[in-house]
């Protein structure tokens, strides 16, 4: 069986198995993401030759350092991180809930994060350092997820109850956001509104360094624990039979997913449907192995958000349209396609 690569720790508690095909697909995705990254850096109100961009990245370029260092590089890097976190967050949820229609925005996690961040923008903006905004968003995401989880709890949590509960709770959260916006002045309202749609405008290197650790820590953890996820997709009873502590593991994965979604919302606002789309696209090209799906979804998510942001900031110059509009424009029809595909399940 030379068609697979296996990496195994002593005692076999941690093991990865990639088929060669999967491996080459992952390489290809990485290459596409990198290409798009470079392209995205060279596009904008001022075009920079991709070669110059590459030279700049290895420290040889001249003359473009303001545009690249302060404007485009942070923004594009953040797009990569946000896309990856949303995608993996959605991947976990879809596995957990065993419903292909689940994603952090649909089951209400994003709405909690939005509410937390809006509270911050309206009440503390200007008096408290901006870095705390992400904490508020994460706290909001956590609080709302706990609420949804507890309310759905009835001797264990049924996936579909979780989804419906999420829809109800996010309606309440949206009402809370509207309420908070009414209390604020017009300028804050416009600002919050753009943020709510999901925009990467004005990202700085500080945002990137603040977000990077979250992603760098959580993604490997998810990959390591991924094989129990494969088992869980078989169903609660079977997974229990195979020795997986179902409820405890479910809670843990849920926490990972919530954190990723909360962080993404904190830095980029409500970029919708990426968490829904990316895992599906990854599954179409990779198959069902959860462990390879983690990096694949992350890459696909990054590509999606980079593309959306690229179109958003270049297509309507001089306007800078929030990237969330474009992810929704692709994502909602995709959701409808999924509903259609799922019609007999």
């Amino acid at each position, binding site marked *: 069986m030379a068609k697979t690569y296996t990496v195994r720790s002593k005692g076999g508690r941690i093991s990865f198995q990639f088929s060669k095909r999967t491996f080459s697909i992952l390489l290809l995705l990485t290459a596409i993401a990198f290409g798009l990254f470079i392209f995205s850096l060279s596009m904008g109100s001022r075009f920079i030759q991709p070669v110059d961009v590459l030279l700049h990245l290895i420290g040889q370029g001249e003359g473009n350092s303001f545009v690249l260092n302060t404007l485009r590089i942070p923004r594009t890097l953040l797009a990569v991180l946000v896309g990856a976190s949303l995608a993996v967050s959605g991947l976990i949820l879809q596995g957990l809930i065993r419903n292909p*229609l689940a994603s952090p*925005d*649909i089951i209400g996690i994003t709405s909690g994060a939005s509410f937390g961040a809006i509270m911050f923008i309206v009440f503390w903006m200007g008096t408290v350092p901006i870095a705390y905004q992400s904490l508020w968003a994460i706290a909001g995401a956590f609080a709302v997820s706990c609420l949804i989880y507890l*309310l*759905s709890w*009835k001797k264990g949590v049924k996936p*579909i*109850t979780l*989804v*419906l*509960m999420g*829809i*109800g*709770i996010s*309606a*309440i959260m*949206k*009402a*809370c956001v*509207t*309420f908070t916006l*009414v*209390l604020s002045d017009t300028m804050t*309202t*416009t600002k919050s*509104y*753009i943020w*709510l*749609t999901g925009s990467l405008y004005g990202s700085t290197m500080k945002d990137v360094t603040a977000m990077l650790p979250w992603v760098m820590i959580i993604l490997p953890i998810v990959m390591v624990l991924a094989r129990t996820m494969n088992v869980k997709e078989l169903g609660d009873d079977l997974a229990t039979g195979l020795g997986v502590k179902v409820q405890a593991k479910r809670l843990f994965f849920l926490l990972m997913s919530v954190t990723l979604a909360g962080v993404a919302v904190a830095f980029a606002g409500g970029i*919708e*449907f990426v968490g829904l789309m990316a895992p599906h696209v990854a599954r179409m090209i990779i198959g069902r192995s959860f462990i390879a799906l983690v990096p694949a979804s992350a890459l696909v998510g990054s590509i999606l958000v980079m593309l959306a942001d690229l179109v958003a900031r270049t297509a*309507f110059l001089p*306007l800078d*349209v*929030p990237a*969330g*509009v474009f992810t*929704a*424009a692709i994502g*909602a*029809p995709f*959701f*409808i396609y999924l*509903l*259609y595909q*799922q*019609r*007999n*399940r």
Partner: protein
Amino acid sequence: MRSLIKKDSSKALLFAGFIVLMLVFFMLSISLGQTSISLKATIHAFLQFDESDPNSVIVMTSRLSRALIATVVGSSLAISGALMQALTRNPLAAPDLLGINAGGLFFIVISIVFFSTESLTGYMWTAFLGAAIAGMLVFLLGSIGRDGLTPVKIVLAGAAISALFASFTQGLLIVNEQSIQSILFWMAGSVSGRSIDMLIPVLPYILGATIVALLLGRSINVLLSGDDIAKGLGQRTLLLKITMGVLVVFLAGGSVAVAGSIGFVGFLVPHIVKKLVGPDHRWVLPYCAVVGASLLLAADLAARFLIMPQEVPIGVMTAVAGAPLFVYLVRKGLKTGG
């Protein structure tokens, strides 16, 4: 479903009670607010309108239209909710949850941004169109597949369509910044600051649809016993369903055109009513009209006083009232049935 009231005579009595309650709320809505106007002065303003008297002006220009709009919108949302719950046999159906409001809103925004529509009739027809398109989409998406129209599928379809329309609306608003203020006004869902002129073009359609809906009570009862039984009893079920759909479009679309998207009224009221009088739609529909109007009038009153001198958007009030019931129903577990 076990109802609290069983005898027809007591149902009629309670109905009369609710009408009185609605009228009381209506009068309170006119007289209470930032400047309270005594009941006597209110009645005086009705009987003898005097331009120099500030109370008269307040009553006739802002308060009266506000109370009327709350009444009409509340009752039509509640009826459209009851119709949708019967049509889809789904306790979670309501114009806002199934994306009909979002559709109406999106089309209004398109018409403002691209066709610079300013006439109220224009808003109204675009809202009807949007409501119809969104409703059909959700209905089609929810009913594809072997097991037909399941509550879960239709709610998911509704959430998807709402999200789709909502993000398109947001996108349009951000590209077209100058219209953001006038449109946000619609989006939040409110019965205040709207002149009576906005209600008048929509009123005939809403009233007509309400009357037709009230007449359909008996047929809806038959429909709820199941498609096969209804057909066996000689009912043209398809025709009835299409009629109900059209009524929903007029009622919900009309409400959106007047007051924007006000959530949870169409969901909450039919449930309260069915708990009170049982599933007989000859009672449910008229009760919905009156209870819906009372609820929205009451919510609007509360919205004025909570954070004086500002006002809570009424959609927030209704969400706070309605969402717990949604949570409760989901917890209890979904069963199909009107």
